[in-house]
């Protein structure tokens, strides 16, 4: 078996790393949703559908001596939001139907902005954890100095 360190020098950095990348993905998806808020033509046909990210826990490490184990987070699924898009009357639009209606993407900018702020705050909180863990590691290295 390969030798592996039972404990990281910086406590919990493996957990936080997963969370940072998961939240980064969420920000990417928000960016994609906002960018495609007006896209009425996609490869699959029809208007763009809003993407939703769901998180799930991921076992990182068991704690020696039993008890609950440490859990990271990862992207569980990126799924389509199935809410029907709004129909707008716009006969000049190239994708309008015979009666002049265009189905717009189901992207709601206010939802996306809320998601954007939540994701970046979560990202910041995780960064604060690494920062604090780093200070703790530095303190541990100063023992006996």
């Amino acid at each position, binding site marked *: 078996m390969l030798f592996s360190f039972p404990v990281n020098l910086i406590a919990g950095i493996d957990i936080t790393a997963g969370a940072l990348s998961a939240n980064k993905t969420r920000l990417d998806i928000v960016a994609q949703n906002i960018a495609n808020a007006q896209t009425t033509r996609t490869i699959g046909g029809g208007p763009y559908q809003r993407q939703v990210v769901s998180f799930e826990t991921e076992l990182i490490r068991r704690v020696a001596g*039993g008890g609950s184990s440490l859990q990271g987070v990862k992207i569980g699924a990126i799924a389509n939001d199935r809410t029907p898009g709004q129909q707008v009357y716009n006969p000049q639009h190239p994708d309008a139907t015979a009666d002049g209606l265009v189905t717009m993407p189901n992207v709601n900018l206010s939802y996306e902005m809320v998601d954007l702020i939540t994701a970046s705050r979560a990202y910041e909180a995780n960064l604060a954890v690494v920062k604090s863990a780093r200070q703790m590691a530095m303190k541990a290295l100063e023992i006996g100095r």
Partner: protein
Amino acid sequence: MAPALLNRARVIDPIFQTDNYQLARKLLDAAALRHEAIATNIANAETPGFRRLEVAPDFAVQLKARVTAGDFVHTAGALHPVLAEDPTARSIRPDGNTVELERELLAMNRNAVEYDYLTEIVSNNLKQLKLAITGRTLT
């Protein structure tokens, strides 16, 4: 071991065999583990159904019991902090997640200060030993 070395061990050992030093060691273990628990909680702040983790309260109980019973130094080895789901945390969110970000950040800061304090105690124990050996304080 040569007799001279054996005598020296008898002088040095008592520093490491005090209750305070061993307690500080155990509490440092617990603080490092608590930090990982908080990292887990903050990482899963948005995971549906996640329940916040905490160092099992049994650890503090055991620690206290062993200190009051005396001979902590020799019984401390078998004691390890473990994690448990926090039974007191209630969810106020529809997804059943019991993590509150503010609470976790406060716990994290508190834990970091505790960690600093404990490293200071361990440091001072070692400094005292060095002072005893060299007869002068370290600069």
